[in-house]
C-alpha cells in the first residue's frame, strides 16, 4: 500500500513575523522557512506505518514555488521514498490544493493520505477535509492515535474533539489529518540528508494535472492585530454597562 503525505513549506514557527509595508501579506523575504510542524507529524506517522510493514512506500507531496523543493528534501531526509513537487507560483488556497491532490491520487493510487491538520501560516484546517470530500473517501481528522489493520483494510483513528476523544473506524482508502499529540517527529540525520539528495522527485504543474488554481478568494489586506489598549477601571456596574453600550457597542 502506498501512503501519500502532504508537506507544506511555511515560515518557521520560531520566527517573529512582520506584515509587509503595503499590507499585501506577511514578509517572507529573508525569513527562515521550514516544514509545517503538523506535516512533520504526518510524515512521521506515515514512516512508522511503513516501518511496521503495513505500507510499501511513502510519497511526500509538496505544492508551491521552486523553493518548496527544500521542504521536500527534508521530508526525503526523514525517510520518505519519493517526492512529488507541484510547482505553482501565486497563492494556493486549500480548494486548489485539494483539487491538485485529487489529480495526483488518480495517478498514484495511494491507499492512505495523511496531512497535517492545518498549516501554521494560514491556519485554514480545510485541505484534508476537502481532499476527502472530493475523493469521496472517509476522513479521520485531528488524529491523536492511528492504528492500521491491513487484514481488514481499515484504520482506527482517535480524534481530538471538543468533548474529549472520539474513535472512528475508516475503510481504506482514507484521509487522515494529524494533531499535535500523535507522535514526536524524528530528526533528519546527516547520512539521511545525504541520501535524500539522490531520491527521485517528480515535478508537475497545475496545467499538466488539468487543475485551475485561480481562487474565488482574494486577500484584500493583511494588518497586524490592533495594539492592546490599556485597561480601564470602572467604579460601578452602571458605569460598566454604560461603557459596554456606548463605547464598546457590544450590548
Amino acid at each position, binding site marked *: 500500500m502506498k501512503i501519500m503525505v502532504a508537506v507544506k513549506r511555511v515560515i*518557521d514557527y520560531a520566527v517573529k513575523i512582520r506584515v509587509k509595508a503595503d499590507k499585501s501579506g506577511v514578509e517572507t523575504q*529573508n525569513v527562515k522557512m521550514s516544514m509545517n510542524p503538523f506535516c512533520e507529524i504526518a510524515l512521521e506517522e506515515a514512516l512508522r506505518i511503513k516501518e511496521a510493514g503495513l505500507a510499501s512506500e511513502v510519497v511526500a507531496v509538496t505544492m508551491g514555488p521552486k523553493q518548496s523543493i527544500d521542504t521536500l528534501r527534508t521530508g526525503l531526509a526523514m525517510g520518505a521514498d519519493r517526492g512529488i513537487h507541484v510547482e505553482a507560483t501565486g497563492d494556493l488556497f486549500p480548494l486548489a490544493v485539494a483539487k491538485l491532490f485529487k489529480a495526483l491520487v488518480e495517478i498514484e493510487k495511494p491507499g492512505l493520505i495523511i496531512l497535517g491538520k492545518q498549516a501554521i501560516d494560514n491556519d485554514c484546517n480545510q485541505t484534508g477535509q476537502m481532499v476527502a470530500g472530493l475523493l469521496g473517501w472517509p476522513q479521520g481528522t485531528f488524529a491523536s492515535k492511528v492504528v492500521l489493520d491491513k487484514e481488514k483494510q481499515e484504520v482506527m483513528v482517535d480524534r481530538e474533539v471538543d468533548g474529549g476523544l472520539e474513535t472512528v473506524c475508516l475503510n481504506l482508502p482514507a484521509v487522515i489529518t494529524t494533531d499535535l499529540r500523535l507522535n514526536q517527529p524524528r530528526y533528519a540525520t546527516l*547520512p539521511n540528508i545525504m541520501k535524500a539528495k539522490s531520491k527521485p522527485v517528480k515535478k508537475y504543474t497545475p496545467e499538466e494535472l488539468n487543475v485551475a488554481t485561480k481562487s474565488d478568494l482574494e486577500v484584500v489586506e493583511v494588518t497586524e492585530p490592533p495594539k492592546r489598549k490599556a485597561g480601564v477601571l470602572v467604579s460601578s456596574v452602571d458605569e460598566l454597562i454604560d461603557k459596554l453600550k456606548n463605547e464598546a457597542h457590544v450590548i
Partner: protein
Amino acid sequence: MNRLVSFRSKSRIGTTPCSSSFYARLLGSSIDASRTRSTANASDSLATVSRCSSLVPARTLTGSSLFGSRNGSSARLSNLTGHGGSQGVARRFCSDAAAERESMEYDVVIVGAGPAGLSAAIRLKQLCGEKGVDLSVCVVEKGAEVGAHIISGNVFEPRALDELLPEWEKEEAPISVSVSSDKFWFLTKDRAFSLPSPFDNKNNYVISLSQLVRWMGSKAEEYGVEIYPGFAASEILCDDNGSVIGIGTNDMGVAKNGSKKENFQRGVALKGRVTLFAEGCRGSLSEKIIKKYHLREKRNAQHQTYALGIKEVWEIDESKHQPGAVIHTLGWPLDQKTYGGSFLYHMSERQVAIGLVVALNYKNPYLSPYEEFQKLKHHPAIKPILEDGTVIQYGARTLNEGGIQSVPYPVFPGGAIIGCSAGFLNVPKIKGTHTAMKSGMLAAEAAFGTLLEGSNLDSYWTTLQNSWVWEELHKARNYRPAFDHGFIPGMAISAVEHYLFRGKSPFTLKHGKPDHEATNVARSHSPIEYPKPDGVLSFDVPTSLHRSNTNHDHDQPAHLKLRDPEMPTQVNLPEYDGPESRYCPARVYEYVPEESGQLKLQINAQNCLHCKACDIKDPKQNIEWTVPEGGGGPGYSVM
C-alpha cells in the same frame, strides 16, 4: 522505533556499547575502563583510507545497510578507538571516533558556516577546479540555517571578497549600499560633539553580514561544498597520537534529565583529513584546542580580550533614512573607565543597524551592557532617527579585541583555526570580516597543499604572517591596549599612533588583566539604577529576545554547564552580586528565591543567544558554554 536509532554496523569489530554518555565525557568524568580497545595503529589505517581518496571524494558511510559492501573500510575505521589507559588526559579531551555511531569521511571538515568557514570551503573547491582534482568538503553549522547565527555591525571592506569571488557584484551578492558619509561623535548625556573621523570607509559598504553569508553559502553549494545546518559540532575526535581527525555532532533527542527521548538520534562522527575550526569568537571547540595544544604559549601570545556587542535593526521613517550613512560614537553612556562605543549604520530598504559595543574588561559588576544600550537610544542625537520606527531584529555577540598580541598559533596536528576563533578583528577599524575571510582562504591553500602536494599545514602560519592581514593587524595593535590606561591616555596614545607613528611605532603595548579578572567585587560599587523601558525606543529583555527568533527545544539538558554547581551561590552572588544576571543579553541567568528564601541561580538555557559573554566574563570561569542541540539558537536574517 529501535531499528532507526541503531547504527551499529555488524561488520565493525572491537567496539562495545559506549556506556558513559557523551555528556559525561564533556564534563571530564573518568573513562569507562570496561571498554575494550583494539590496538591497531589508528593513524596508519586512516592514511590508507585517505590516500586512495586523493583523486576521488573520500566518503564512506559505515553502518548503513543500504550502502552494501563497505566492510573493508568500516573494519579499518573500527580500529580508531583509542588505546586503553595510557592516554587518560588526551581521552578526556578527545572522544572515541567510532564508538557506536555512524561516521562519514571527508577530505576537509569545516566547523562553522560563517565568513571564514565558507571562504575556506570555496577556496578549496576553486583550487580543486584549477588543478583538475577533487576534494570532498563538508561544513557543519549549528544554526538552523546558514546565516542564522551571524550578527555583525557591518561596514564591509570587500578586499578579501574581491580576491575570492571577484564577480560578486554580477552574481548579485547582497552588497549594494556604499558608505555615503562617515561621522564620529563624542556623546555626553545631552549633546553630541563631532570629531574628525579616524576611519576610512570610502570604498566600503554597509551590509547585513547574515545576508552576505547566506549568499556565500549558496555559492559554496554551487561549487559542490556540502553544508549541513542544524548540526552542532560538540566533540573533537582524535587518533592515538593525539592528532585531530574530525568532530562529532551532538546527540539529538536527549531529555532534560539526560534520558533518551522517543526521537533520540545519536550524533555522527565527521572525519576529516584536515579539520578547520571556524566557530567565531570564543568558539567552544576552538578554545579546547587552544588549551590542549598550548597554542598561545607556542607563540608567546597574550590572552584574548573581548567586547560584547548588542545590536538592533530598525525600520525607520523614509524621510530620516540616508542609505550608506555611518555614525560611530564614543563616550556616553559609558564612563571613562569603560571602553566601548556605539554604531549606527543606514542599510538598504529603510533599515538602520544600531548597536553598542562594551569591552568586557569593565570593572563595575553592576554594569548591564543591555541597559546601557537602551539608554543610548534615548540620546537626543539618536532618538530622532529611531522615532516612529519599528525594531525588526535584536541580537548580541561577543567579539575579539585582542588583535595581534592575542592570536594563538593557529595550526595543530590535524587542522587549523580560522576567523574569529583565532581572532583577526582589526579593532581600530572595527572590522573583522575581511581578515576572517582571508584567513579562511589562506588555510584552505595550506590544506590543499597538505592533502595533495606534500606540504604541511604550518604553511598557513607563514602565509598569514606574509599577508595583508598581518600587516593590518600589526599597524592596529596599540590602539586598544592604550585604553587600558584610561580614556584620555587612550585617546592620546591613539592620536600619537595614528598621526605620528602611522603604525610604525617601535613598541607593542600589552593587554591588562583578562576580562574575567577585571571585575571588581560588588562592595566597591553600588547598584546602577537603570530607567524603565518605554516600549517605544527601549524595551525589556523578553521583548527584545522575542525579536531575535531564538528558540531551543526546551526538553534538553542545559547547554550552559557549571564546573562547580555551588560556585554561583558561594562566590558569584556574595562577592560580585551575580553579574551574569546583568551582562547576559538574553536573561539566561536569574537568581530566584527558593522556598527557604535563599537565592539560587536559575539557568534559562532556552533564551541563549550564543553570544559567549558568560563563558568570557564569569569571574571564576565557572560557566562553560557548550553547544546545545543543533538547530537551536537565534534566527538572524538581517543582522
